[in-house]
């Protein structure tokens, strides 16, 4: 999108301002007013830079600081610290240690206070890392910081980098998916829970995984009508407790159903659903119309790995991870020395496991730089906790994902 004549802007993380002009962009963008950019460049040298301030990034920073690393930089392109946590108004699962029963947003505030109370961690918000290069002695990251008087280019030189960039939402291909009113579930959650904006009056949710179920429930809490949830698989993928919450509020869940198309004149006015047979083919004649003004897509996430690819980390396609991921060892180090990965970027999972992976990455990066306070003992503890989380039936996918990553790390296997 183009905002105030600046092209290529991610509107989902651009705060609304008085008289802001937002236009659709359908071609390569061109800058009309070059003056908007701050010419002063800045150079920063740090020991560890962490890209992304979600649960993984924050824990990595806190853990590395506890090991005694003198200068840590935590960068996030959002204007809020916390990643996905800031929009999660529901209570979290997990164990006592990972703050189960605490709401995501409260957890974000708690971790943010910890980050802010440590002098050796500097956090830099509204800053996007746009490129990274792997030098002989250190790694170079190029960042753009959004300032009121224009954007500033920053060069960050760092001995070690931890990528905790999270993930991107998947989209579905169907006629009408570009009509205003078709959203990703994460986008809807941001609108409601961060900005207090209702996305519409009547929503059709596509996908009955935990994200689809939770966002449906939060829509109800915001006073939005959820017509139904459709799920292509023959069973609900998310936890039964989440599905049960929706059902007792009267929201039906249609398994073995999918969305065929969305119709409307300039905006969503309804959708056509279709029943799906055992071989995942639509059953002709089962089409039905649902009138709604919002369609919310919750069909999974893909790890964000573009920066990892650019820096030269070896990647593999692993279905259980949600797409391509950087392969890493059991200390979260990638194939590039001093470059680590943690959280959803290393395979889609949960905030609880993202926090533990962040701790592992933070400790490992610190050890590499020579800061070591019982690192081995702590690493063992974190690995054990991860194993615990991945041992139940809902942990099967991340478990296989991490096993495959370990295989690739140890020489590789063709899948």
């Amino acid at each position: 999108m183009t905002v105030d004549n600046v092209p290529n802007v991610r509107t989902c993380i651009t705060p609304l301002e008085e008289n802001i002009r937002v236009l659709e962009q359908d071609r390569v963008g061109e800058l009309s007013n070059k003056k908007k950019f701050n010419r002063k460049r800045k150079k920063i040298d740090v020991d560890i830079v962490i890209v992304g301030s979600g649960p993984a990034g924050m824990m990595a920073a806190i853990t590395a600081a506890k090991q005694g690393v003198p200068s840590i930089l935590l960068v996030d392109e959002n204007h809020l610290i916390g990643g996905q946590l800031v929009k999660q108004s529901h209570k979290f699962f997990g164990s006592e240690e990972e703050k189960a029963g605490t709401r995501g947003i409260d957890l974000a505030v708690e971790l943010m206070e910890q980050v802010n109370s440590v002098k050796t961690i500097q956090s830099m918000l509204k800053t996007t890392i746009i490129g990274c290069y792997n030098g002989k002695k250190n790694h170079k990251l190029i960042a753009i910081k959004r300032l009121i008087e224009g954007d500033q280019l920053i060069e960050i030189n760092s001995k070690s980098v931890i990528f905790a960039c999270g993930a991107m939402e998947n989209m579905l291909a169907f006629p009408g998916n570009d009509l205003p009113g078709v959203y990703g579930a994460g986008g809807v959650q941001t609108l409601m829970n961060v900005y207090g904006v209702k996305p519409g009056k009547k929503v059709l949710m596509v996908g009955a995984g935990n994200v689809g179920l939770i966002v449906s429930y939060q829509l109800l809490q915001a006073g939005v009508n959820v017509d139904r949830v459709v799920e292509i698989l023959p069973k609900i993928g998310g936890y039964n407790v989440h599905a049960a919450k929706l059902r007792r509020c009267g929201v039906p869940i249609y398994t073995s159903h999918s969305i065929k198309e969305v119709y409307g004149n300039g905006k969503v006015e309804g959708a056509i659903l279709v029943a799906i047979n055992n071989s995942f083919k639509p059953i002709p004649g089962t089409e039905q119309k649902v009138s709604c003004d919002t369609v919310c897509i919750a069909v999974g996430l893909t790890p964000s790995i573009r920066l990892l690819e650019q820096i030269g980390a070896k990647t593999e396609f692993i279905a259980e991870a949600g797409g391509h991921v950087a392969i890493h060892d059991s200390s979260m180090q990638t194939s590039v020395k001093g470059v680590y990965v943690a959280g959803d970027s290393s395979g889609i999972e949960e905030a609880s496991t993202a926090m533990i992976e962040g701790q592992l990455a933070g400790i490992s990066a610190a050890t590499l730089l020579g800061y070591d306070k019982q690192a081995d003992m702590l690493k063992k503890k974190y690995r054990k906790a991860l194993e615990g989380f991945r041992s139940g039936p809902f942990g099967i996918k991340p478990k296989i994902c991490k096993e495959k990553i370990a295989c690739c790390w140890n020489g590789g296997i063709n899948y």
Partner: protein
Amino acid sequence: MEVLTIKQYEKTGILSLKDLTLPNDEQLKKGVAIIECVQEIPCDPCVAVCPVNAISMKDINDIPKIDFNKCTGCKRCVGICPGLAIFVIKIRDDNALVTLPYEFLPIPKVGDNITALDRAGKPRGNAKIVKVNRSNKTTVVTIEIEKDLAMEVRSILLD
């Protein structure tokens, strides 16, 4: 290909009484927690919060098991459970008290009239709110309903 048997609740999201561990009449008279959490999910705050260790688990993925003889019906687990899956039921001579978690606005008040809903969201008659507690932004509401509905009603709609 592996043979998939899909349980009914995995299709509908609605548990039936057969899926649950239920207390006996004596225990119901005293007032006990009913845990409607039947899958192995990585979660355990209910175990930690119970003051009398009535809920147990082998590991974090285990299904919570409750000892109805130990449970005092104190309702603490109702407010902490992130799955909103725990209810406290107390059967009295002529009616029943159902305590449930409620996360909608406005916050209900004692004396409010409500429509009682079952696990499928179907209205099952009217009732009154007799008690309201707040715990970590979850409102824990107790309603008074007909005895026969004690194992059916699991949600409310404010009138």
